[in-house]
């Protein structure tokens, strides 16, 4: 499994939404089918679908009832969803249709997807080796070391987004947001009733403020069981993905079991990093 390195989060997201242009294109003018055979072969379309992006699949489905039935088959959307998230099929069962997961997964500033299947390690430090704190509560861990371990995390595919959030001080409508947040959610989250109706209760697990001057703001999420994996270690190879000192664009790194972001800060900027 090669590491997936992101030069720029935004650029990468755009690339992913548009499936890569392939080597060839049939530019011959459309011609009516010969009558002796037909395109109505399900097997053919199951194969072709593997090379079409989601939006092209939908347009194909809207051409006729036959295509609607064949293309909306959920096995196609499972393939496409995992393909575009660049992740292998998780062993866990999903509670929703893959089509719905696909449509709910692709309209954010996407970093990528990763797999969790144990506890999770959150940290704001990207210097190796990762040290798991030994305090007894999450709050204490966060306060003392800026990192913590969370048990009881839903396993399966997680999606990581980088979001711009307006700062709480100025609520200008013209502002797109200046606070960067690493947002991670289970792929099924948006489809749960409780989430949609807003009936769930949420809990702030803690926060960690950095008072001293720092060169950059960063944060990472690791699957504890795979913390020592070679692929996860790639996150600590900062030279390979973090921007040069003057580059203030956010950068991200995602591997099969980890995700990290870093944004270099201008001098004199304070840093606020809450989790």
């Amino acid at each position, binding site marked *: 499994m090669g590491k997936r390195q992101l030069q720029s989060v935004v650029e990468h997201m755009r690339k992913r939404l548009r499936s890569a242009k*392939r080597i*060839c294109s049939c530019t011959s003018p459309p011609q009516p089918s010969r009558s002796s055979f037909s395109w109505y072969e399900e097997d053919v379309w199951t*194969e072709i679908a593997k090379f079409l992006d989601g939006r*092209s699949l*939908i347009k*194909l489905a*809207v051409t006729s009832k036959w295509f609607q039935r064949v293309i909306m088959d959920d096995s196609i959307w499972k393939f496409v969803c995992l393909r575009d998230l660049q992740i292998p099929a998780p062993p866990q069962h999903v509670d929703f249709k893959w089509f719905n997961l696909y449509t709910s997964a692709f309209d954010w500033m996407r970093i990528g997807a990763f797999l969790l299947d144990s506890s999770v390690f959150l940290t704001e430090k990207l210097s190796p080796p990762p040290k798991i704190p030994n305090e007894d509560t999450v709050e204490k861990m966060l306060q003392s070391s800026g990192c913590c371990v969370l048990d009881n995390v839903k396993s399966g595919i997680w999606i990581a987004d980088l979001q711009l959030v307006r700062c709480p001080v100025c609520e200008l409508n013209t502002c797109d947001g200046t606070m960067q947040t690493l947002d991670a959610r289970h792929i099924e989250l948006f489809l749960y009733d409780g989430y949609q109706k807003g009936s769930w209760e949420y809990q702030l697990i803690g926060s960690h403020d950095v008072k001293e001057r720092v060169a950059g703001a960063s944060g990472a999420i690791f699957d504890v069981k795979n913390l020592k994996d070679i692929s996860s270690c790639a996150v600590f190879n900062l030279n390979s993905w973090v921007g040069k000192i003057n580059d203030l664009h956010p950068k991200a790194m995602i591997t099969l079991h980890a995700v990290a972001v870093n944004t270099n800060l201008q001098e004199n900027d304070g840093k606020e990093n809450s989790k």
Partner: protein
Amino acid sequence: MSNQSESPNPTSSSNKITLKTSDNEVFEVEEAVAMKFCTVKQYFDDENNNNVTSGTSTTLIPLPNVESHPLAILITYCKKHLEIKANNADNKKEMEIDMEHYEREFLKNVMPQELTELILAANYLNFKEALDFFCRAVASAIQNKSVEYVRKFFGLESDFKPGEEEKLREEFAWSFEGVDED
């Protein structure tokens, strides 16, 4: 013969295998070419295992689901594929460039309607490289094109009742933004 390993170079293999299509045409192909068709390879291996004791080797392989027209094209494609591979055995990048060039030229001589036959044949023969190549060709022809273009491309007519298509377009509005020009 049963122990002969697969050779990547068609010129070094003198063994011929005979394939018989559904329209009763007979093709004699080099073993290296035939072995790229996994369905044929499977059949061939099974036959050989069964014939070890008797010492005979019948290499006529029936292909009841493949017609001669797509098979001929697949054989040409496969031969070239092996040739390019053999010529660039130690340079993967060169090989990819040659392959890309060949595939681009190849598509110029293939009608869009032929692609479905080729995909079905490649699928049946379990010839992975060709299957991916043809599917990619169809996909890139309609990637992000309008519904009308796709219909015209495949010679389709809408069979939705009035209002049904509009409803679908509304439901999936996200996929109708920024369509490429025909």
